[in-house]
């Protein structure tokens, strides 16, 4: 793991008697996309606000770029970008004027026109730069927010549900933008309630009811949800319960084997890529004609439900 840019330990935040975030511990390496996934009200935004210094933690430790958010120096603040959940720029200013305003907030020098144009190209708003924001669509406003977040070339970018409420095509584009930013060496901390977006992240933190259920790569999350890789096997012949029982006894089958139909099996293994050839050989031995065999990648929505159901808290 690379050097963490964000580190929290037993982080908690209470509002009155309500505990919004409980005992959250994680770290995020530099140059990665960290997705913070959870249903609405799970504590994603509160955690993000704790990390950016908007909230003071009730308990626990935070280090962002090696500084506590409550003591951020100007230099550190200049390294951080923040895109709030809602559009907070000015409706009565043009796209260009809004970008200029944010650039001034971050002390970006007055020879900034080139940078502004680059960003407008990046978010595909160049042809709208003189348009007053109130005349922009919701998606355009989001793109403007993203451009404003990037204006000062931050090392660490916090994005609070950047894709909420926008169409799937634009959502995909956003993730493409995020990938590009990550490739430039910047770190992104992204909250989202679209579980499917976990697939685009390098690391995913799963949050439910203010608790961090786990932090892992998307692939590992799937494995953890189901106990390993999942293989879907379909034969031309009837698969008897006796055959299934025999299959369970094989040394390379550590996980569950479920008969999902008269000719279909769902097999959980440690490593799908090594087990699939072995399974094909075993089927031959059993005189079963394999119609199809492949690794099953269940959607992250199912993965998330499974993880929450399991209540796995081992980060």
């Amino acid at each position, binding site marked *: 793991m690379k050097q963490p840019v964000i580190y929290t330990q037993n982080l908690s935040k209470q509002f009155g008697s309500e505990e919004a975030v409980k005992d959250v511990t994680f770290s995020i390496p530099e140059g990665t996309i960290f997705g913070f996934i959870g249903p609405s009200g799970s504590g994603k935004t509160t955690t993000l606000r704790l990390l950016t210094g908007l909230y003071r933690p009730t308990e626990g430790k935070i280090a962002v770029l090696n500084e506590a958010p409550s003591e951020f120096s*100007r230099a550190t603040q200049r390294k951080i970008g923040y895109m709030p959940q809602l559009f*907070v720029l000015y409706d009565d*200013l043009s796209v260009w004027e809004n970008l200029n305003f944010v650039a001034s907030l*971050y002390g970006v020098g007055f020879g900034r026109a080139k940078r502004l144009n680059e960003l407008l190209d990046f978010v595909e708003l160049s042809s709208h730069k003189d348009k007053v924001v109130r005349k922009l669509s919701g998606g355009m406003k989001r793109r403007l927010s993203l451009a404003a977040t990037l204006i000062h070339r931050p090392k660490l970018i916090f994005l609070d549900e950047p894709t909420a409420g926008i169409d799937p095509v634009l959502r995909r584009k956003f993730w493409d933008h995020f990938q590009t930013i990550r490739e430039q060496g910047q770190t992104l901390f992204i909250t989202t309630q679209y579980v499917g977006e976990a697939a685009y992240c390098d690391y995913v933190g799963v949050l439910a009811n203010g608790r961090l259920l786990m932090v892992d790569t998307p692939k590992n999350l799937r494995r953890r949800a189901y106990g390993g890789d999942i293989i879907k096997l379909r034969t031309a012949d009837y698969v008897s319960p006796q055959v299934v029982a025999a299959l369970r006894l094989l040394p390379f089958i550590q996980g569950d084997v479920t008969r999902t139909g008269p000719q279909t099996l769902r097999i959980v293994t440690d490593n799908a890529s090594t087990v699939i050839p072995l399974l094909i050989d075993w089927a031959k031995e059993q005189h079963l004609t394999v119609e199809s065999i492949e690794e099953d990648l269940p959607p992250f929505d199912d993965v998330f439900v499974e993880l929450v159901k399991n209540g796995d808290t081992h980060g």
Partner: protein
Amino acid sequence: METPMAEIFQFFIRLSAFLGREIFAVLRQPMLILTLVLGPFLILLLFGLGFRNEAQPLRTLFVIDDENSELAQNLEKTVSNLGPQLIYEGITSDKEEAIQKLLRREIDLIAEVPAHADELIRNNQPAVITLLHYEIDPMQKDYIAVFGEVYINEINRRVLLQATQQGQEESTAVQQSLDATKQTVADLNQALDSQDQDQVQEQQQVLERDTDILVQTVGASVSLVNGLNQAMGYSNNTDTEAIEDLLKDIDQNSQPMSSETGNTQEVAAEKQRLNQLEGNLDELNSLLEEFQTIDPDILVRPFRSEPKSIASVQLRPSDFFAPAVIALLMQHLVVTFAALSVVTERRAGTMELFRISPISPIETLLSKYLSYFILGSMLTIILTAVVVYGLGVPMLGPWGLYALIMTSLIFTSLGIGFVISLIAQTDSQAVQYSMILLLTSVFFSGAFIGLHLLQGPVKVVSWAIPATYGIRLLQDIMLRGYLANPLLLTSLTAIGSLFFVIAWVLMRRAMAQA
């Protein structure tokens, strides 16, 4: 690590953030600019055109017991042309009908003259004229009291004038008496020359009678003048004293020396006495002529006030109110702008951006001060140009001092606006607070109601409002040409500084961690 120079440079860049934001936002709303500039101009123009700097004429109906009496007739002559502010609506004896007219607002005032006013005066009692009105406006009530005072004085003056004119007319009889006495002196001289003893005695008796009449008629007129002089507080009664001395001399010289005037010595003495008397009469004649030529109006109203301003220009009523309108409008506009600024950003969530960015609370506040100060200054320049060059309101003082006053007024108003903005939870709450301040300013700043009319403790409210200082300072600099009380400018700036500190503390709190 940034170098100190880079840090300073970035400080100014951050400071410029709101400058562009506010100016672009306002310039993008031409209607708003038009309203902000044209609105105040039109208000002033309308005010200047519509303001009447004259007391309200009151339709007055006189009520007297007997409307056909001699008193009523005399009264009608006196009051029907009293002055432009008294519109004479006639005389009636029906008080009830007069009150009904007052209730229907057909007349403004009833002047009820007491029955037998002449008897009251003769019995050494004042005749009180009761003024009945139905006003609810306290200022108008006060006006009626002053109106009554002024017009009753005028009635009294006219009564006195009439008496004086009568006195002067009576001096014609004195003249006749004087001429007759002089003729008797001549006749007596002739009788003495002809040594006609009987004629001498007869003429001596005639002279004694004539001089008695003369002393009495002249004495009455002189007493009237003396009484007037004493009432007016004149210390110099030389003219009347001379007449009185002369009358004594005449009285003395008119006494016959003896019943018989036989010898030459006695005749010579009698002739000498007659010569003295003749001289006295001539002197009296010239003094009486002098008395007759005095204007009776001067006698009854010897003093008259004539206000003259030492100001170098003649001010119109709208000129006086123009500085107050500038101060009130600028205060209101700037407070409203500032009051809406932070509360809107807090509500929209923009404040979160500031909190995470490197801009500090003091930089945020300074940047906002700067942007709204420039906006306020632009509006001030346009408004002042329109007022001074468009409406012709004088600007007698130096422009530099005017700019200093407006700077202080805008600075203080911004402080109040930002404090409102940081306290208010919603836009409408901020607007309400601004409106309350405007209302307070209209009543307590002395813009339209003089501060001297307010009770002492209430004046604390007045002196907490920037417009109170602004109005006085602008009136001084624009209409007098100098600052009568420079402490006002210092106090205004001190209040502004206090609000700046409060706004800074509140801004720090608003941008602190939750």
